[in-house]
């Protein structure tokens, strides 16, 4: 080859790379409403926290499959700086570029094939405030919109970054975190020009707002208060006795779902405060917060343009156990010509709704439940509540960390199964009459002293499992038991795989049809975040957040000893696998 030809060839190659980069950047700027609605048609991307608006946590890619997963290797990894409390977030991918957030509101953009850094961003935070926070400094996810990355901050702001450069476009203060201590840790949801995000709040004496913000300008469009609603005439206000509404808790600390057909956002709301109410069985008229306490521990349907409430269902009226509804994904399904939403509640039950949030079925996903005797599958009504008055109570199940925690399950349209981690654990507690701490800044308002138990009333140990069930009936197809509950989200794929990032540090690939383990790899530290699959430069990858130290995982030192007693809680890395 002559020098001229070589130069031309190099020039052509450079031009190709440049044009591909530009094309990629140009396309990446177009994560708009239409593309998000159609996200399941392009499995190369992972555009929202829950994968797509259907919240399936499913990848339609099958380059990696049950037949070849035994050849899966680490392709690259990215060490996350300052990973206090591990890495709890969910990566997003658009056009081969991977974006993810870490503790202290850091964001990274990486080449999805090589892991090379495209840009990095670190939010300037009020360090003094962050040091005073309990549920901090982790961040659980970001949102993609047209040309922007959106993130809620620990100190109560919503920020927009330029998707191509990582430069700050706007930031909007939404929560007075200096006063209320809390801010944002959950991922926002971008819907048709609005960025929707819920504040932390269940344990704090406030009214747990959810915000709708204009994505282009950062201007606040609406606020919905999960405690008592926004409208002064909202009948929900009558469900709070005395002044309790002012310090009622609530919030919506995980990303919700969206149905484009009806332009409806679904959000799960957090528990009321204090978590445990000394009113006991007389909770309708006595105690810390007499009444049903709407709209806490509820699923709510909002108009994303206005924030107006369309419908709701309170999963646990007067939640007295901290089993809020914020944890569960909103799995959108269609079967037999009918549309459903499947939503797990922290108490260990799964609620099945129609799109107007009318209960269609309720099934239990864990065995050790005694906060109620049952929940009526036809009406959703609680049967045989265990309301605990002031004093000591033994073996309340589940434990405060939940029968289900915030780690998401996965629905696979190929198998028709819903995969979910369940937790079998309980606790002793002493309910105490407390008063909210409001000055100089709000503090947790729990209402009890509690102790996690190493055993369960069914004669077993505190443990976990991954189940594959029919999402509408709960019928069990298979179950894999874990000595320690996995605390990370699951991923299922078209390649007949279910990936389970476990607590000890193993990433496991199970056969989605049978639960048989096909492959595993030790990532060296526990998993407590997200997992996705995507395509970059023609290859399928699986990216998983590694890093231990979340609030639920903190219990593992006492429950299980090693390896958790010596596991670091200030390390994190995104580990990416390919064939």
């Amino acid at each position, binding site marked *: 080859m002559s020098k001229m030809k070589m130069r031309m060839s190099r020039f052509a190659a450079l031009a190709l790379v440049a044009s591909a980069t530009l094309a990629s950047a140009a396309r990446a700027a177009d994560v708009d409403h239409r593309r998000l609605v159609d996200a399941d048609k392009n499995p190369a991307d992972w555009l929202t926290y829950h994968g797509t608006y259907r919240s399936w946590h499913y990848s339609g890619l099958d380059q990696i499959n049950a037949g070849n997963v035994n050849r899966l290797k680490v392709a690259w990894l990215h060490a996350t700086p300052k990973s206090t409390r591990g890495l709890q977030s969910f990566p997003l991918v658009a056009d081969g570029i991977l974006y993810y957030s870490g503790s202290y509101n850091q964001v990274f953009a990486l080449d999805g094939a090589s892991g090379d850094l495209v840009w990095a961003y670190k939010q300037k935070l009020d360090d003094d405030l962050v040091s005073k926070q309990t549920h901090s400094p982790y961040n659980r996810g970001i949102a993609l919109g047209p040309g922007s990355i959106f993130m809620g901050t620990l100190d109560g702001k919503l920020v927009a970054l330029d998707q191509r450069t990582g430069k700050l476009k706007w930031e909007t203060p939404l929560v007075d975190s200096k006063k209320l201590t809390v801010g944002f840790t959950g991922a926002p949801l971008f819907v048709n020009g609005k960025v929707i995000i819920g504040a932390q709040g269940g344990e704090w004496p406030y009214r747990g707002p959810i915000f709708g913000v204009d994505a282009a300008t950062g201007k606040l469009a609406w606020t919905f208060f999960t405690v008592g609603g926004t409208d002064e005439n909202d009948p929900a206000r009558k469900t709070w006795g005395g002044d309790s509404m002012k310090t009622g808790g609530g919030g919506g600390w995980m990303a919700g779902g969206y149905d484009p057909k009806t332009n409806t956002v679904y959000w799960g709301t957090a528990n009321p405060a204090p978590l445990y109410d000394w009113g006991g069985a007389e909770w309708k008229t006595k105690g810390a917060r007499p009444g049903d306490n709407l709209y806490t521990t509820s699923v709510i349907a909002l108009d994303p343009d206005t924030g107006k409430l369309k419908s709701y269902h309170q999963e646990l009226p007067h939640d007295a156990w901290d089993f809020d509804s914020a944890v569960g994904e909103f799995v959108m399904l269609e079967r037999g010509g009918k549309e459903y939403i499947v939503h797990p509640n922290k108490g260990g039950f799964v609620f099945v709704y129609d799109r107007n949030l009318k209960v269609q079925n309720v099934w239990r996903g864990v065995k050790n439940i005694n906060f109620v005797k049952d929940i009526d599958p036809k009406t959703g009504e609680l049967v045989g509540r265990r309301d605990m008055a002031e004093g000591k109570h033994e073996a309340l199940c589940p434990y405060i960390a939940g029968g289900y925690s915030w780690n998401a399950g996965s629905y696979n349209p190929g198998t028709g199964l819903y995969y979910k981690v369940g937790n079998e654990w309980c606790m002793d507690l002493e309910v105490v009459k407390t008063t909210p701490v409001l000055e100089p800044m709000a503090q947790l308002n*729990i209402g009890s002293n509690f102790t996690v138990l190493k055993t369960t009333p069914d004669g077993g140990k505190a443990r976990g499992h991954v189940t594959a069930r029919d999402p509408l009936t709960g019928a069990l197809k298979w179950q894999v038991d874990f000595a320690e509950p996995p605390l990370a989200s699951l991923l299922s794929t078209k390649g007949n795989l279910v990936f389970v990032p476990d607590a000890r540090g193993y990433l496991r690939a199970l056969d989605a049809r049978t639960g048989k383990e096909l492959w595993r790899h030790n990532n060296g530290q526990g998993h407590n975040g997200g997992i996705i699959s995507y395509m970059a430069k023609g290859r399928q990858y699986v990216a998983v957040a590694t890093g231990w130290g979340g609030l639920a995982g903190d219990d593992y030192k006492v429950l299980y000893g090693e390896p958790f007693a010596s596991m670091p809680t200030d390390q994190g890395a995104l580990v990416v696998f390919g064939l």
Partner: protein
Amino acid sequence: MPVQGAGGAALACALALAAAAADLNGPMSSRPRPAASGAGMVAAPDGAGEAFDVNKLFAGTCGWCHSSGGRKAGRGPQLMDTRLTDAEIIARIKAGKTGAMPSFGSAFSDDQLQAIVRYIRGLKPEGAPQ
């Protein structure tokens, strides 16, 4: 006498607090409180106006991590029989520990910090003679 919950330990703690807590306008309330009229008066019977009660402080805030009122290890360490000195306990409450414990800064007065230390020093196992 608002001695809830942990029986004798709380009672001992409340009595100790009654004697020690000069500043009753602690972080357990956002409202001005009536001044204590005597050593035996620890708190009003309900809601706002209550005195600084460490057992309640644990049940409201600290117990999230320090199980059974500090008697057992949980998300945070067991406080009963801690080897930390009084000064170290107070320093940890004020400054916190990154990724493990929030800093409470100036949330507590010196008297309240001393009351928390006395509560921790007075912790006994559940069911043990107090």
